């Protein structure tokens, strides 16, 4: 039987994704899945550390079977892994795992974001700044969790000291951002988180400050703003 090139490619691609095919085709299939598992492991390194290599490989294999990458950049594969792991029956005993995946993913995105020169807001008259909306820098993201996500993350890093984390240790609001050579996060207070969230929606500083005060009456705008400036969270004034 002779196939047209187009059909031949479609058949080949379908077989690589897991359907049918015999013998040596399995070599290609195996290469694809092991590359993708490796890539997911690099992107979701904290998830991998938490569950261990064997479990991670199995979960990643199940994730891959739902769909191969739709773009050529491996670091962009796995955006919906958090949603997948949330519904993955074998991970049911780890209810915080999806939040860890969200944090890993946000760090991955920030890491691959361009680093822009931080906006020089000192040149803007403060009254005008109060009435301005601010563009958040590429990669800046707020990750909320009902669990002490920052501590869970910390004990899962290579070389972390021994110790345990109490899952009931309180909620976390983590602001992921780009640094010179990597990406990192800081833990925000309730007011700070609301401030960033509302700014992220495109609201002006005044409105964001009001939202922060509403959730945390002792919200200190000076301290919060200085902290965010130091993390270079603001890229520009929104025009």
């Amino acid at each position, binding site marked *: 039987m002779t196939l047209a090139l187009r059909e031949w490619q479609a058949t080949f691609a379908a077989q690589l994704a897991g359907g049918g095919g015999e013998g*040596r085709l*399995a*070599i290609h*299939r*195996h*290469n694809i*899945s*092991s*590359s993708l598992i*490796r*890539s997911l492991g*690099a*992107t979701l*390194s904290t998830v991998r*550390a*938490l*569950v*261990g*290599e*064997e*479990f*991670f*490989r*199995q979960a990643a*294999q199940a994730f891959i079977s739902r769909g191969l990458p739709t773009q050529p950049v*491996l670091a962009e594969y796995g955006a919906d892994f958090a949603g997948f792991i949330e519904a993955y029956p*074998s*991970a*049911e*005993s*780890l*209810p915080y795992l999806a939040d860890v995946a969200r944090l890993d993913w946000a760090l991955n995105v920030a890491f691959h*974001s361009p*680093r822009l020169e931080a906006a020089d*807001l*000192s040149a803007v008259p403060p*009254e005008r*700044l*109060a*009435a301005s909306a601010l563009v958040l820098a590429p990669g800046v993201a707020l990750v909320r969790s009902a669990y002490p996500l920052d501590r*869970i993350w910390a*004990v*899962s890093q290579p070389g972390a000291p021994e*110790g*345990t*984390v*109490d*899952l*009931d240790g309180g909620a976390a609001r983590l602001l992921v951002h780009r640094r010179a050579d*990597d*990406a990192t996060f800081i833990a925000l207070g309730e007011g700070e988180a609301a401030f960033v969230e509302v700014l992220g929606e495109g609201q002006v500083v*005044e409105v964001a*400050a*009001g939202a922060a005060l509403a959730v945390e009456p002792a919200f200190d*705008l*000076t*301290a919060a*703003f200085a902290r965010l*400036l*130091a993390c270079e969270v603001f890229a520009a004034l929104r025009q």
Partner: protein
Amino acid sequence: MTPTRIAIAAALASALAGTVAISERAEAQGKMTVEKCYGVSKAGQNDCQTDNSSCAGTSKKDNQPDAWIAVPKGTCQKIVGGMVKS
């Protein structure tokens, strides 16, 4: 201008004053000369690497993902307590 806005403007102004001092200090220490624009890919994200074992295209593990169920056993053992799930 509302009193709230004046208070907010004052708070922003003091925050900015603090940052200027910090960036001047950084300047005094010498500017970073090397700056990467984008993150460098981690190992595993570079390209389609080949596993040494993958030429053994007969690996059963790969084709039978549900034949065994792995149990999480990494640093999750350090996470204790939490709400009991039924």
